[in-house]
């Protein structure tokens, strides 16, 4: 693992690059971060990434910025969080500053809209890929409750447009209740697999 300045630099530039590619909404940064910080740099665990997403989602502000702050904090504390925050805010700041000079021309440009249309397909593929990977991780454990939660939350959020905060609260309480019942039955919680931080 890198140390000191090098680590801050890597954090800043990683966040900068990922943020510059976050087309199509905040969630798109999750597969990008997973690729970079979980699979390439091994700074964040697979399940930890899901936890950080839950925190980013339930905190105020943009998901992409929140997730960046969380990863930075985990890797290098408060200064690390500052680095990833700056890295994730600068690309939109710079891009919009430039575009605001000629925004009508940009908005009505045919070439720009053709590229954007094609990119929508790529963004959809990226999101499907991460749902596929993360979802199969949950199905592989063959535990009824998480699988039921997965379907119930999808139905609630997609079809019923449920309030995200309420959904997160309900699932958190359900998880806590489940753990309490398991604890009383003296079944080892170990099968939930404690993820070891590397």
């Amino acid at each position, binding site marked *: 693992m890198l140390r000191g300045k090098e680590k801050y630099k890597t954090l800043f530039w990683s966040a900068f690059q990922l943020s510059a590619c976050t087309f199509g909404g905040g969630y798109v940064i999750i597969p990008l971060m997973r690729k970079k910080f979980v699979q390439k740099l091994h700074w964040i665990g697979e399940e930890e990434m899901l936890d950080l997403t839950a925190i980013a989602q339930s905190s105020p502000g943009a998901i992409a910025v929140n997730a960046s702050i969380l990863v930075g904090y985990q890797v290098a504390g408060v200064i690390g969080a500052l680095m990833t925050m700056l890295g994730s805010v600068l690309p939109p700041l710079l891009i919009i500053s430039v575009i605001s000079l000629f925004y009508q021309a940009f908005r009505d440009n045919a070439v720009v809209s053709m590229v954007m249309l094609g990119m929508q397909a790529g963004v959809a593929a990226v999101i499907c890929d991460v749902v596929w990977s993360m979802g199969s991780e949950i199905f592989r454990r063959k535990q009824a409750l998480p699988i039921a*939660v997965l379907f119930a939350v999808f139905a609630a959020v997609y079809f019923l447009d449920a309030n995200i905060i309420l959904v997160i609260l309900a699932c958190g309480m359900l*998880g806590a209740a489940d753990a309490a019942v398991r604890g009383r039955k003296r079944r080892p919680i170990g099968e939930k697999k404690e993820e070891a931080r590397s």
Partner: protein
Amino acid sequence: MTLLELFWSFFQIGLFSIGGGYAAMPLIQHQVVEQNPWLTMTQFADIITIAEMTPGPIAINSATFVGIRVAGIPGALAATAGCVVPSCLIVTLLAYVYYHFRGLAAVQGVLGGLRPAVVAMIASAGAGLLLLAFYGESAWPEDPGSFNRVNAVLFAAGLLALRRWRVSPVCVMAGTGLAGLLLYLAL
């Protein structure tokens, strides 16, 4: 004074927008169109369109746009800073709590309940993006004939590249953008 107003307006937007970009839109509209005479409704609609075409969160994009129009570069910086300060404070605090207490059985239970929920929420966002890519709108289309075959092919190719050859997501997005341009120009 204007800088302070910009900071404060976007501070409130940053503090009260929970649950992603589209939740922030009415808040932004309230602050920059109704509360303050910074943008007209048409300009607001334009900035939403541009925010969708460019990377980055809608709140940051509109902060920069409004800031620059009202007070130049310092305005953009003040508005953007206002937008992220609440995030920085609250998220850092939550991160601290998470890393100190996640070993506890109860916290493990809560997190175990949240993980499948998070996957479901990403899937829900993905379903909207999929419809947007195929039909040009994120709700179920009224006219199924508007199916975009070029984008369906690009999507399939992108997914294959990601799953089969482990191509990086960034390359896939750039690739489908470029291929889209060539295909739409050719057709």
